[in-house]
């Protein structure tokens, strides 16, 4: 067989791999082709720094023979290479160990209506390069008008269009198109050795939903300047209010702990605790792949299993782990449509909002810390312990008193979930893994 990769349809390529694999003796084969166009422009101080534009196509597949699995990926799509990769994979699988749980999911009769998910905006591919550059320049220009801003990390406008095609030997064939666009700016304020920095980014699938240059600039400015002239504080245990971006981070850590892959590998403190109360009544968490227009939505997961809505925590009770087919089989429950490559990943995974406004949460706090940013590592799913460098705003008498820097926060996820006193009404799905403002009754804040 000959032929240039460009001339072949994406589906044809995926099916070709499934066919090659079966010819080589594989029992099961699953092939994914992803075809994308990427554009990004970075501007700084009023002129373009980088402009990148490219199209690329990647293939990934797995073969299973006698319940032994081998994976491969390639960006070289010439027939000769692909044939060699497939036959290597089948040979490699034979050298591995038999695993009773290995294998593809059985074909589901359910199909998600793709257009109803609103994953693709036809306006994104049509947008002119000049307009993209203008949006980035405009955002930075507005931000720099504020005299408190002393330097810029630059503004960026990014778009991508991706087609995902999946074919597998269980009979599944599917494909979907999606778009993303983002507008961001990063800023510094303050003098030479006492500068502070922050950024703001707006991401959406639809151009019309993207925040305007004014909004992105204003938010970035506000987030930056509010940190000026920070103070150190003494080490103490106080209530901590997580801004939504910080709740996103906490919910992301929670995902790592409820992934069925971590559960069967015993690398999470939540292993074996289904049905137990982990958090208080304020903790209701859902994974939902079917929310129209949301960043984490998709019709099927990386194994072709239809996505769905899964309740993970209900008022503090741990109901389900999120799973792909393999981890589900290990734990004797069905997949939840969370396969992501070779592992388990979130769709839209979020903490449900409460009734309080962020202002009410602040007003309820006599003394405490609003957590605005963290840096560093320090998450341990095995114990649930977390520890990070932190930036925030000190609260006195229900009002922000002054910014705080050079502190760390430390705690344990289970303790935090059982001490969430208030949950905000400000969930906005800016990220696939997200949550609203929350107030945690007590955390150790280390300072002087």
């Amino acid at each position, binding site marked *: 067989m000959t032929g240039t990769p*460009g001339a072949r349809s994406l589906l044809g390529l995926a099916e070709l791999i499934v066919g090659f694999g079966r010819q080589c003796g594989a029992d099961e084969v699953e092939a994914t082709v992803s075809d994308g166009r990427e554009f990004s422009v970075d501007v700084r101080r009023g002129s*373009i720094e980088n402009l990148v534009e490219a199209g690329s196509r990647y293939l990934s597949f797995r073969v299973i023979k006698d319940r032994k*699995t081998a994976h491969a990926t390639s960006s070289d799509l010439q027939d000769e290479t692909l044939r060699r990769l497939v036959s290597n994979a089948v040979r490699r699988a034979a050298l591995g160990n038999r695993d009773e749980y290995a294998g593809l999911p059985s074909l589901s009769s359910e199909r998600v209506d793709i257009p109803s998910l609103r994953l693709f905006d036809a306006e994104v591919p049509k947008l002119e390069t000049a307009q993209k550059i203008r949006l980035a320049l405009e955002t930075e220009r507005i931000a720099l008008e504020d005299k408190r801003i002393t330097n810029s990390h630059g503004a960026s406008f990014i778009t991508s269009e991706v087609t995902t095609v999946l074919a597998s030997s269980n009979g599944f064939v599917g494909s979907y198109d999606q778009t993303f666009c983002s507008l961001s700016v990063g800023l510094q304020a303050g003098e030479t050795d006492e500068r502070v920095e922050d950024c703001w980014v707006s991401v959406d699938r639809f151009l019309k939903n993207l925040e305007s240059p004014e909004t992105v600039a204003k938010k970035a400015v506000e987030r930056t300047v509010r940190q000026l002239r920070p103070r150190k504080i003494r080490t103490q245990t106080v209530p901590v209010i997580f801004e939504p971006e910080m709740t996103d981070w906490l919910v992301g850590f929670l995902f790592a702990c409820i992934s069925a892959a971590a559960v069967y590998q015993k690398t999470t403190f939540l292993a074996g605790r289904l049905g137990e109360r982990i958090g208080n009544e304020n903790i209701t968490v859902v994974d939902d792949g079917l929310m129209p227009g949301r960043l984490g939505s998709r019709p099927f997961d990386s194994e072709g299993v239809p996505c769905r809505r899964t309740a993970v925590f209900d008022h503090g009770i741990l109901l389900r782990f999120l799973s792909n087919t393999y981890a589900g089989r290990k734990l004797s429950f069905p997949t939840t449509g969370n396969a992501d490559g070779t592992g388990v990943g979130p769709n839209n995974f979020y903490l449900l909002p409460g009734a309080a406004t962020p202002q009410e949460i602040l007003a309820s706090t006599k003394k405490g810390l609003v957590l605005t940013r963290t*840096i560093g590592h320090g998450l341990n799913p095995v114990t649930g312990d977390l520890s*990070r460098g932190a930036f925030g705003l000190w609260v006195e008498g229900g009002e922000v008193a002054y910014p705080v820097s050079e*502190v760390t926060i430390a705690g344990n996820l289970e303790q935090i979930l059982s001490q969430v006193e208030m949950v905000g009404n400000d969930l906005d799905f800016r990220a696939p893994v997200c949550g609203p403002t929350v107030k945690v009754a007590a955390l150790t804040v280390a*300072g002087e």
Partner: protein
Amino acid sequence: MIAFEDHFGMAEAETRKLLELSLSRGGEFAEIYCEYRIYSFINMEEDIIKETAESISLGLGVRVVSGEKTGYGYTNDLSPGSIKSAALTAASIADSGNTASLPGFRKAPAAKDRYPLIRPAHQVSLQDKMELVRRAYLSCQKADPKIKKVKVLFSDQAQYISVVNSEGWAARDARPLVKLICTAVAEKEKRKEIGFSGGGGRVGFEYFRQKIPPEQIGREAAEEALLLLEAVEAPAGEMPVILAPGHAGVLVHEAVGHLLEADFVRRKTSIFWDKLGRKVGSSLLTIYDDPTLPSFRGSYNIDDEGTPPSRTLLIDHGVVHSFLQDRLSARLMGRPLTGHARRQDYTCIPIPRMSNTYVDRGQDDPADILKSVAKGIYAEKFEGGQVEDSGKFTFSISAGYLVEDGRLTAPIKQATLIGTNIDILQKIDRVGGDLSFGLQTGSCGKDGQEVPVTDGCPTIRISRMTVGGQS
């Protein structure tokens, strides 16, 4: 050195044509970066080889520079049409009528090989690699009955790059990279802890016979998990901190290295932008970045712009001596090249990066440094850190000890340390003579690009730093 494999086969005439096309809109500098990478992976857990993987990455990136602007196009479709289209995308960054003329090509002189190896891992049979993985696995599992879960990952890759630019420079490199890592979970009563170890570098398979046997990696992971079972909460607040020799070099990677990367310096976002020749830290502190250390994970024969690298003195007895440069920043700043332009792969624009960063050895006896601390912590292993341009940085301890009356006492649980670089660098008041490097397993992320790096340091005392424990 592994033999260079050419998967592009572009004749000089074709290359010239492509560079000319790239400069057709008036760019000043054009470059073609070709990359072919093969990668293999083995994962063992639950007593079986669970998966194996093979990856091939093939692609080409064209970069055009015009003033301070960079245009970049890339493709993994090597048809003439796609390559031409990548070149035209990059070319469009410029819009003057000037057309540059190309000089004749000069091949980069053969650099001293920094990856001396006997048995390239990508040529080793899968069976032999699996055997290596099993040896590490069993050694970890058998270390103690409290070890309840073991995971071993092995990966190796061979990366072939070729860089040709419009100044007529042509260079190439063939880089091996090997990594064997083990994680262990130990359980006692209801408590669980995780331990980690690993090894590798730009080495051949003989490394696991001559340098670090797989059994050692397995055992070290088990020992760390077992130690943490006995760990107490780390203290919270300001106190003296002793950095153990080796991986604690992550502190200077974060606190100093990133902020001396020339892109942050020329944009004046780095707190160090105006500090060249000025004292920013203790006189005991001398820091190098050295991409030429043989077999190290962060090393290379040429950087990703084709520049031969050199050991670069960053901080000389507390004084900022130089920055880490790529071509663009070096030209804009009027500084010499240092060979620190790196990119994750052909889809990325090269930017200034660290390679192997370390604090040079000092005069103190490590035992005296320990004795000098009445109450503080000893930071031994790390899971990484982060810095922002303002100089605020953190790093997280994954294993360490309390220091009481000059002795190591209880092991402590993970904790994050935070500080501002210009403050902490002045508080380094003891530097030992026992320089060593951390594990050959780490990577550094910047602008979404991951590259392999190492860090090193001798025993160091910081007189006061904020430790973020819970007690």
